[in-house]
């Protein structure tokens, strides 16, 4: 308690959270016609994030299982207690809580009213400061640029989060924070990142027209110390598309205390975009002004600092890790649990340091002893499903998975309940939002229906995600679709595996398959002969799928 009092004056808050809620534009590298890799930003949730008339559709507010996706992140933060008053190690309430902002939410200025309204609507106990930047969906501002811009508002170590990470219950933010707390003090790690096992896409259920699955990124890490060592970037891929190059200085570094002779390489994992960083990272960002993307450019570069000597010497002082390594070294000399001091099995011998074989420079004197390493939390696939909702596939996937976990969540209040006709057949793995009206003899299976939807008679909805205010008229068949806000499906229309922009209207009797329905190409509906062929193929699949409807994956058994 006394200790807490002594430090409370200086350390009122441990972390602040920075949530980036952009347009959903992702940096990605594509091969341009000239066969060179170009960094472009690509919005993979299009058309769901296109404007609904004049009204924007922020990505952060796209619901996942009827909850805007940003709520998942915010509640994750809340659970970890990133608040000045209740971080696990602080006992003293800061005197002026009101002036402290827990979460800095950065969004494009045109999204501000909606997002601000949503996050301040009383759901969360967090103090959220919504800041804006000017951006249009076409231009793209990278996270690094944003952080540089808002650096003055971040005065302590920070957690950088995306708005679209859906964390599994088994992975709590405190796990990541605790790892960062321990390691930054014990050996001077500068950042902690979290990668999760990327969902394995099911080839059969993929609809190619929805856009491609982002390619997996190979990473190299050390298992014993849980250190991220290398992230394969598109630059690397461009330079050597055949081989992945690992610096030998990483694998064997004569003269350094830290070597990683046994590393792991995998492309199973995906970056969660959750980064716990020291404040000094921001200073480093100011040094390296050309970095734009945090995930694609900065983190891979940051990994290199830990084993490349010149980088270390050059940037080590900027990172300036506050660490008590030296004092801890004495105390933990005999600790067997400390990761850095590797405990070798009995059969391993150290190289005998014979008198003339002493290394040419003394590691103690030339390098500071802090490791400057990037800690890594790996979330394996077996420990629960995690995903980032940054493309349509993952949006559908996470909705289906969340459905599988919940049971029969119809609205509970009687008023909303009364809107649902008792003669409607609603399977237990369906979620229905409040004030949604469902008419008689309609069948709904494995679907998420948003709020205020109106669903007519004899409609069939299977494996769909309907956002709020959708209207499905009588006798329409909707299968495996994601319908944006305010989508209208006319009577007896048939939709199969389509994605629609907000406000799209499907005329009665029309049918679409495997399409992205944009308001702009309203008239240019599938007149492609190739697509027709594909449609034929898919027809077969669907038939089979309909026949076995208790299997959640779509048409895996076509092979």
């Amino acid at each position, binding site marked *: 308690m006394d200790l807490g009092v002594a430090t409370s004056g200086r350390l009122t808050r441990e972390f602040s959270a920075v949530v980036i809620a952009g347009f959903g534009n992702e940096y990605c590298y594509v091969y341009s016609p000239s066969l060179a890799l170009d960094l472009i930003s690509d919005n993979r949730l299009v058309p769901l994030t296109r404007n609904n008339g004049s009204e924007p559709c922020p990505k952060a507010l796209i619901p996942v299982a009827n909850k805007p996706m940003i709520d998942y992140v915010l509640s994750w933060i809340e659970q970890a207690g990133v608040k000045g008053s209740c971080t696990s190690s602080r006992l003293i309430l800061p005197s002026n809580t009101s002036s402290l902002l827990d979460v800095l939410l950065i969004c494009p200025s045109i999204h501000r009213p909606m997002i601000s309204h949503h996050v301040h609507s009383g759901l969360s106990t967090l103090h959220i400061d919504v800041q804006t930047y000017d951006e249009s969906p076409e231009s793209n501002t990278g996270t690094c640029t944003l952080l540089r811009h808002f650096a003055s508002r971040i005065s302590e170590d920070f957690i950088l989060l995306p708005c679209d990470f859906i964390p599994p219950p088994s992975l709590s933010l405190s796990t990541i924070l605790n790892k960062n707390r321990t390691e930054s003090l014990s050996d001077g790690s500068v950042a902690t990142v979290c990668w999760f096992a990327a969902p394995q896409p099911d080839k059969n259920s993929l609809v190619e027209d929805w856009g491609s699955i982002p390619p997996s990124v190979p990473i190299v890490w050390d298992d014993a110390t849980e250190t991220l060592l290398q992230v394969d970037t598109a630059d690397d891929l461009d330079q050597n598309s055949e*081989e*992945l190059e690992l610096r030998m200085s990483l694998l064997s570094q004569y003269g350094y205390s830290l070597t990683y002779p046994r590393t792991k390489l995998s492309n199973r994992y995906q970056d969660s975009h959750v980064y716990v960083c020291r404040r000094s990272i921001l200073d480093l960002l100011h040094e390296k002004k050309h970095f734009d993307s945090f995930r694609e450019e900065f983190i891979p570069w940051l990994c290199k600092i830990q084993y490349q000597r010149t980088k270390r010497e050059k940037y080590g002082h900027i990172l300036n890790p506050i660490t008590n390594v030296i004092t801890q070294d004495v105390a933990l000399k005999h600790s067997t649990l400390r990761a850095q001091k590797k405990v070798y099995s009995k059969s391993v011998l150290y190289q005998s340091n014979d008198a003339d074989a002493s290394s040419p420079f003394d590691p103690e004197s030339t390098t500071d002893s802090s490791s400057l390493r990037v800690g890594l939390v790996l979330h394996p696939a077996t420990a629960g499903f995690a995903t980032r909702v940054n493309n349509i596939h993952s949006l559908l996937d996470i909705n289906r998975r969340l459905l599988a976990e919940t049971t029969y969540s119809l609205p509970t209040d009687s008023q909303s309940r009364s809107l649902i006709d008792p003669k409607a057949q609603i399977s237990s793995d369906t979620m229905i939002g409040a004030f949604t009206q469902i008419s008689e003899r309609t069948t709904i299976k494995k679907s998420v229906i948003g709020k205020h939807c109106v669903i007519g008679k004899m409609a069939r909805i299977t494996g769909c995600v309907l956002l709020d205010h959708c209207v499905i008229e009588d006798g329409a068949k909707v299968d495996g679709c994601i319908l944006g806000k305010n989508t209208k499906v006319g009577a007896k229309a048939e939709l199969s595996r389509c994605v629609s922009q907000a406000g799209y209207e499907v005329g009665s009797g029309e049918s679409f398959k495997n399409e992205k329905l944009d308001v702009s190409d309203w008239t240019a509906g599938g007149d492609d002969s190739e697509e027709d062929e594909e449609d034929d193929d898919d027809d077969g699949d669907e038939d089979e799928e309909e026949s076995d409807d208790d299997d959640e994956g779509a048409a895996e058994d076509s092979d």
Partner: protein
Amino acid sequence: MAPKFNAGKENLLADEAEVLQAVILADSFNKRFRPLTTRKPRCLLPICNAPLLDWTFESLALAGVQEIFVICRSHPEQIKAKIAESRWSKTGSGIKIVPILTAKETFSPGDAMRDIYTRGLVTGDFVLVMGDLVSNIRIDEVVKVHKERRKTNKDAIMTMVVKESGANHRTRSRADSAVFGLDSETFECLHYEPVMGYPPSTVASIPREILSAHPDIEIRNDFIDCAIDICSVEVPSLFQDNFDYLDIRRDFVHGVLTSDLLMKNIYCYVAKEGYAARVQDTKSYESISKDILSRWTFPLVPDNNHPAGHLYEHRRGNKYIDKDGTVILARTSTVGSKCLIGSSTKVSDNAQIISSVVGQNCIIGEGAIINNSYIFNGTTVGPGCVIERSIIGFDVNIKENTRIDKGSLVGDGVIIGPNAHLEAFGRLSKKRGIDTVDDEDEDEEDDYADSEEEEVEAAQGTITVNLGSGSNAMLWPQSAPDEDENDENVENAKNQRFMRLGDSASDLAFSDAGSESSDEESESSDDDSDFDKRLELPTSSSTSLDLPDGSSTDGIAESEFRNEVRLSLERAFTEGHSVDNAAVELKTLRMASNVSLSRVREAVVSAIVERIQIIDGGGIPQRQEIAHVISRWGPLINKIGGVDPVETIAALQTHCASSKRLLLFGQILAALYQDDVVEESDIRKWHQSLLSQGLGLSPGVRTDNIRKCWEIGSRMIQQFDERDSSEDDSEEDGGDAGNNTDGNEQDENEGEDEDDSEDVEDSSGED
């Protein structure tokens, strides 16, 4: 022990009554132990007083091997004799040992494997080891695993045994290690990348395609490769099919893993327990000796299961003294910890033996100090001698007050001293003339060794070292880096230093770190564009050591290339090839030696100029000669893969400036002009360039000559100018000049067309 294993084995292999075979490659195929191995195969060098081959037999016996083929190349008689007296070849040992003599032409393990194939030695899965193995790993477990795997996967042709250690383990060779890429679950070896101490590699390149089939890969740089391979019967035949495989790891493993056609798998067995290592160089000789003395190899330790059958008493501090009581240790002598002393050895007063191995029948004189050294049987060390970190062969006589510095190797039978001083890393062997008769029967097969010794002897003249009055020794020259040495080879001189006893090679290691930092500096200074870094890497990573090497090899390559061009053109000249054929030949040459186009041009121009014969008296015959040669061969200049007439003139100028044909410059240039090899505008351009005026060159005869050429050029340009001005009214002026100009202008146009078409051809050809 062995029968017990056999019983176990038979139960294990009840369904397949197969004897477990092993093949020992008893030859090292390298010369790292010279001169200790000039008269003796490496596998008979003793380590801890037992020949390496016995340690290997012992290791295999532990694994329950029933049939061993020993492939011997050099000194097979000695190996045969050794096998005959080995306790494992006695009846009842349960092991059948068959020595196989292979041809002298077997220069690599790959050749040996091909020999195994042609002889049809192996019938099933077999254990392949090298003849310098010290191991206590239960190879039978590995064989079991291998056979299980073979039941499900017929393509799993080999299992390599690797020992987990640290990256900087003392027994792990820095000169010859490897990075393994293994599948995390199955331990299938997916990638093998050899790593050398020098030249240091900066990156390990893992092929991306393996990630698609194996998402989880472990990259291990901490394995000691024990060179124990469990091979299936296909392995020798694969060697036979791929006759270019030399090394088992670098060629065979790498080849199998990267081949799209073979579709075979190689697995690793990561031994976590046990000990296995190869005595592959003098450095590992030391570390393995120390490992044995420190009992890492238990149960194979000197006081128990000593492979040569000696009995040692294990004393406190890991001291081993022969048990038969014949060792005489003077009261005032000191024997430190981790020492081994063979029978009948006498250690005199005040002698000190520190962490060393002394053979049988040795005499250590008064006050001698033996520090971290290995002394074979029958050696006498005189009083007051100091021996540091060296290996001393059999029956060496080191006379009093001799000092032998670290890293030295002293061959069998050498006499050195008194009062001599052998510098660090010295290598001594006995002069051949003084050989005793007992070597005679081996003379024939020792041709190879002899020739090498001859070389050394020939070099004796240049070496003046005082090896003592009674010495019969000759000092081997330090292995100077050969000019044409291929750095890619494991046996390159600098890499050898990592294998040398007592050599930390810290200067090489340091230059590695330095180069690394320098390339990173460049990298970080220019915004980390990795591409630039890569471009700069070759220059910045060159150490101070190899800079002169690099430039000299460049020079050599270039002069070689010039020579080649000259020869090929001479051939073309004399045999009257067509210009096109000659051009093709030049292009091939250029690709082969990778030189820039301008070098080719220089070489061609100078060759053509030299082709012109100087005719005394000059005048018209000379002019005809020039015109003849240039009209015949001039077009070649523009067909070598690119057209740059300005450079042609410059090359002509520089060549003429340093040649006897200086006076012909003007005429040659004119002839080139006539033949449209160069144009007027080119001459003007050349004339304007600073270099052509000899500016910036140090004054000298050559510069003067260049200057002269330039003046000739100026005169020519004057003529052009005059002609241009008089062209309008030069109807009657007629004469040579006028005709020439007209003709030239037409020709010029045609020439341009031709050039263009040539360009197209060339570029397409290069693609």
